């Protein structure tokens, strides 16, 4: 780390999980740093209030029940819907929130989108470098200390104590898998529970898209990798027994 670099960490319970924030103010006064982190947390709570499908009265829940139109929703619903269309194309159809059994559900992208937006709030406030980790989906800007990348462990599907690898991260990384919440990812192509791989990790510039692509890859497995790389993203697939596949540009640490 830079000599004397200030690190400010915060963990915010929101969206049924905990979002971890790590910022390096780089000269921004601590009062403003704390204020920016508070704003980022407000944004996360607002995203929850708009997009939660676990609460019946959120705009998204009402939209999905057909009680209101998209034009009645807060503007971020249209923004997320447009991102879902973009992600559906970029994934080659493996991410398709319109093809789910319960109807439209953008959950596979919303958390990544929210963390990305939170990171933008921090950056726009003048914070030098930072990372927002929304329960395993990470948006970053800048780099920590004197290092050239954030150092991020990728959890093994086998246990929260295990890492499959460590990557040098610029930008975003999202991981989807079945190990935390069971078979909750739907294979929109086969119309069956997904399970091609135990987890899929996607790196690239935009966490919203990375999150969606990772969700799609859990169903697609290797069949989805070409679309991911064509979109400018890199991926790693992990299977039971520790088998893995990575695309060529997956950001493993540089050789010494």
């Amino acid at each position: 780390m830079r000599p004397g670099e200030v690190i400010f960490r915060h963990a915010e319970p929101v969206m049924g999980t905990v979002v971890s924030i790590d910022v390096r103010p780089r000269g921004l006064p601590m009062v403003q740093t704390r204020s920016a982190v508070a704003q980022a947390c407000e944004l996360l709570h607002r995203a929850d209030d708009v997009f939660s499908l676990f609460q019946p009265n959120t705009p998204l829940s009402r939209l999905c029940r057909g009680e209101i139109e998209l034009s009645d929703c807060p503007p971020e619903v249209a923004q997320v819907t447009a991102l879902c269309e973009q992600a559906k194309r970029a994934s080659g159809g493996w991410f398709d929130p319109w093809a789910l059994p319960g109807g439209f559900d953008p959950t596979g992208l919303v958390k990544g989108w929210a963390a990305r937006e939170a990171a933008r709030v921090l950056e726009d406030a003048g914070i030098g470098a930072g990372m927002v980790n929304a329960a395993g989906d990470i948006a970053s800007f800048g780099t920590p200390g004197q290092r050239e990348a954030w150092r991020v462990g990728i959890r093994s599907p086998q246990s929260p104590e295990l890492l499959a690898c460590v990557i040098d991260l610029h930008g975003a990384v999202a991981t989807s898998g079945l190990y935390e919440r069971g078979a909750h990812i739907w294979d929109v192509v086969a119309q069956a529970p997904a399970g091609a791989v135990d987890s899929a990790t996607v790196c690239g510039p935009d966490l919203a898209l990375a999150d969606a692509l990772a969700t799609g890859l859990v169903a697609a497995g290797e069949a989805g990798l070409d679309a991911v790389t064509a979109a400018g993203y890199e991926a790693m697939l992990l299977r039971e027994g520790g088998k893995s596949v990575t695309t060529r540009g997956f950001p493993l640490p540089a050789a010494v």
Partner: protein
Amino acid sequence: MRRAPLVITGTACGLVAVIGYHTAAPQASALTSSSASGGTGTLSFGATTAATTARAKTSAGANKTATSATKTARSAVGSDVQYQYGDLELKVTMAGGRITDISVVKDSVTDQYSQQIDAYALPELRSQALTAQSAKLDGVSGASYTSAAYEQSLQSALDKLKA
């Protein structure tokens, strides 16, 4: 297994990396012996890299070199090696949010790989990331956890670290 990790659970080791390949036809290797010795937790990560690097050159007859390299740490680390082979299980010990030790628990060599993917690279913990000075992680990516599971997560331990 030399000290209780600061993080996560009461188990002896903080992290284990289990790394493998979408490959076929496991091959016997001189490295089997290094696997066994690694299980004792005596190998450093540099040694792991050296072993794997050498293994990547198995066709050049480097097996014996690899075996000895596991005991000499880092001396045979190659640059930009494209890993293609085998399953490798590493045991990583953390203390104070830093990786303090890594050992090979198991490895096996395979030499055949799927043609569909551009490249296979062994997701390895290179020595750059693992020296005691620089092994601190900034974050952990994984499938979404619930609030309850967060408390058990490595990310939670990192969040509790003070600058």
